[in-house]
């Protein structure tokens, strides 16, 4: 009997897929993965996680409006869509200067460059960033433990689409799938503080986030120092605004231990101490109504 090449190809694809799912299940920890009822779960089961990274990359491709390196080109250091959402690009060089494709090496490469998108842009102006959202939603559906999909989507929903309600709902979905995750709690606190101006709820959420971060093991802490820095600086900012200087100093001291720029934090601590010293005699003085 002669086997058709189509059948052999189909068999190979099936074997690859089965192998990938089997290995994913063996080396993943199913206990950490609560069930989701999305269409992807029904169709692919655990195999859906294979697609999550690809969907996340698609969000980054859309963020670049189609200008994106292939695996053969100069790779992107860190996904720009995430860097922008974490606010880490403000002090860095403008990443739109980066040329993924480099100088053409021959006439085929040069002429081919005329047809592909050859301008490095980011969809961070106006409401165009909404176009990345479907891919982030799909990534979250396919891998509910992929934390950055929730935080990045929430950031762009708030910042460019001006829809904090949807952002909050999505983060809450993330919290249901990843109970007590500090990165999601940080993003949730930002919505309460910056969009709803509800500082009390923001403080509660960030305090919970800081406690969760501190309860982690040392390895997890080492990998997420920026998170502790961000949470404690935000908390310190809230306390500074309410004039609670001792608490603000306490949070800044925590931030200093993990911050990439401890000198700047020390300056803020010194400033807070000066204000506390100026406040203390006034607070110790007898009140006028006595």
């Amino acid at each position, binding site marked *: 009997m002669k086997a*058709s*090449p*189509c059948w052999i*190809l189909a068999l190979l694809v099936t074997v690859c897929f089965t192998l990938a799912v089997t290995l994913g299940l063996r080396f993943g920890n199913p206990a950490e993965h609560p069930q989701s009822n999305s269409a992807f779960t029904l169709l692919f089961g655990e195999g859906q996680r294979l697609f999550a990274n690809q969907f996340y990359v698609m969000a980054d491709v*859309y963020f670049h*409006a*189609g200008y994106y390196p*292939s695996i*053969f*080109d100069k790779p992107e250091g860190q996904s720009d869509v995430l860097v922008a959402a974490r606010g880490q690009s403000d002090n860095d060089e403008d990443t739109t200067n980066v040329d993924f494709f480099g100088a053409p*090496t*021959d006439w*085929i*490469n040069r*002429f*081919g460059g*005329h*047809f*592909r*998108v050859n*301008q490095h842009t980011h969809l961070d102006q106006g*409401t165009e960033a*909404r*176009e990345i*959202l*479907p*891919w982030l*939603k799909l990534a979250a559906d396919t891998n509910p433990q992929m934390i950055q999909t929730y935080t990045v*989507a929430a950031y762009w*929903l708030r910042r460019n*689409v001006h*829809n904090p309600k*949807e952002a909050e709902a*999505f983060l809450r979905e993330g919290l249901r799938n990843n109970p007590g995750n500090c990165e999601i709690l940080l993003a949730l606190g930002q919505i309460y503080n910056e969009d709803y101006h509800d500082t009390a709820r923001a403080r509660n959420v960030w305090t919970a986030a800081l406690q969760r971060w501190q309860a982690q093991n040392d390895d997890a802490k080492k990998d997420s120092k920026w998170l502790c820095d961000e949470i404690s600086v935000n908390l310190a900012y809230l306390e500074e605004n309410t004039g609670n200087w001792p608490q603000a100093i306490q949070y800044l001291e925590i931030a200093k231990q993990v911050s990439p720029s401890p000198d700047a934090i020390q300056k803020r601590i010194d400033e807070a101490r000066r204000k506390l010293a100026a406040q203390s005699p006034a607070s110790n003085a007898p009140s006028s109504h006595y």
Partner: protein
Amino acid sequence: MNTIWALSGVVIKELYRRKDFYVLFVLTAMITLVAGMHRFFNDPNIVRYAKDLCMLLIWISALVIAIATTARQIPVERENRTIFPLLAKPVTRWQVVVGKFMGSWLATGVALLVFYIFFGLATGSREEISKWQVYFQAFWLQWVMLGVVVAMTLLGSVVFSAPSANVTICFIVIAGILFLGGHLNVIALRSAEPVQSVIYTIYYLIPHLEWFDLRDRLVHGWGGVSWLDCGLATLYAVAYAWLFLLLTWLVFRRKSL
């Protein structure tokens, strides 16, 4: 020329008699409409993912139609023995090759036009279409690229023993060119000799079909390419199509039927 048009007409009629095109069109339309109707974060203005999906389906469908239509032309004529009365008339083998090519290419073009009209209507229902140039160029370049694919498949149909083998090999080769063709120079640079020279030779020999893919420009709202580049790419595709047709004729004229 009349003979070539007559042969082409038969191929075009065959396309609308067969179910391939209708099935692919209905599938593309259904998937696009379902995807387009889904609302992410209750935002009705998110459209690019649906456009992207629709264009991907159009590319896959067009390749399937082009390869499947072309691959069976000459083998079926031989299998049904209709090639003998055809060649007994004053029709040369070159005319058969060109007629089959023209018919397959035009039939694919008609199907592609229907797909693009649907794409235009679907996009127009969600956002304003202002950059018509890129729509036309995307259609034209894809059609011209399909001309190379049709010619390549026609060559395969006189080289390989069965249409199924030809279809599979053509799909693998074309997918390989589309995904890897433009990066072979990078792979070559990272390889040692003599592999480097072999990869470079392949890089310079293959038709660079990836040039003709304007999907990203269309989906992300970029403008079209310059008309000069469009014209040069057309000439490049015409040259490759004729080269494949010439090779097909050279093989076909020596082939015993």
